[in-house]
């Protein structure tokens, strides 16, 4: 089995204290006892979310479908190893992330590109905000519009993989910094710096679309700014 079964049964995570209240546990218990209906209800509840996670990472419907299928097959195979010390959903996200990473690795191998999870260029200066303006709309007013969803998908797709992975796990899926680091096998400080870069890059792209040009303000001159000299 290529996927790391130790990782699948690990029980890290900030949500371990909440796990006793996980609403999925009764269904998990039924599935563990051999009740297929319990498993099917878990699949129904989470397949859309896992497809969304996979699409955001692999950016391709056929690959995302493969990730979803492999994820739930792995759930069937490993369910009895699940120790219920994290939420079922967190466990599922970790499995799906592993399969999505496999897809990215496979693509990279085919293109002979090096794996970019190494700690390169995380130490470069942060991208400074350039387009600074309040948004014309509240996020919830526009979130369901098709063109907005396309914009979000496009902006995410333009991020480098290592930034996209961290943003998706941390900000979209709601994993803790520790869980994100664990799922991607990177350090906590790498998660933090990549997340900050991802947020700043996405902010820049989205603000150029949603920002109100008439109330745009100039960025500060960070090159000349000195500690203690607030503009």
């Amino acid at each position, binding site marked *: 089995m290529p996927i790391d079964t130790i990782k699948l049964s690990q029980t890290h995570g900030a949500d371990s204290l909440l796990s006793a209240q996980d609403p999925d546990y009764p269904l998990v218990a039924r599935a563990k006892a*051999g009740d*297929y209906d319990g*498993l*099917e209800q878990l*699949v129904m509840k989470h*397949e*859309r979310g896992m*497809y*969304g996670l996979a*699409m955001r990472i692999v950016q391709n419907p056929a690959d*995302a*479908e493969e990730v*979803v*299928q492999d994820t739930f*097959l792995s759930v*069937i*195979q490993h369910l009895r190893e699940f120790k219920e010390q994290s939420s079922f959903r967190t466990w599922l996200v970790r499995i799906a992330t592993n399969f999505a990473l496999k897809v990215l690795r496979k693509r990279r191998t085919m293109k002979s590109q090096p794996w970019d999870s190494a700690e390169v260029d995380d130490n470069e200066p*942060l991208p*400074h*905000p350039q387009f*600074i*303006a*309040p*948004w014309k709309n*509240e*996020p*919830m007013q*526009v*979130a*369901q519009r098709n063109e*907005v*969803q396309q914009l*979000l*998908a496009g902006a*995410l797709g333009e991020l480098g993989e290592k930034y996209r992975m961290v*943003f998706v796990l941390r*900000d*979209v899926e*709601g994993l803790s910094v520790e869980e994100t680091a664990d799922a991607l096998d990177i350090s906590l400080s790498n998660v*933090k710096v990549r997340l*900050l870069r991802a*947020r*700043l890059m*996405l*902010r820049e792209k*989205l*603000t150029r679309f949603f*920002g109100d040009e008439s109330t745009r*303000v*100039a*960025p*500060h001159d*960070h090159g000349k*700014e*000195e*500690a*203690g*000299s*607030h*503009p």
Partner: protein
Amino acid sequence: MKTMTCDELLQAMNAYVDGELEPGFCTAFEEHLAGCNPCQIIVDNIRNTITLYRDGEPYSVSAKLNQKLRECLRAKWLELYPES
């Protein structure tokens, strides 16, 4: 206390947005924000960005995938638990 610069604020942005900034540092952060319109806007923009991604559910599962997934999972289940 030394005044926080825009650069320092940018470095501490994640911790502030995630509510993980230690209290003393948080006060300095908010003092800077109160007097710096660009930084205020950037913090709001980042919060909006996260909200937009977190609350949208743009992808739906096709009927074809749904059907294929059910068949494949059922087959795997029967392979592992033939008695069920």
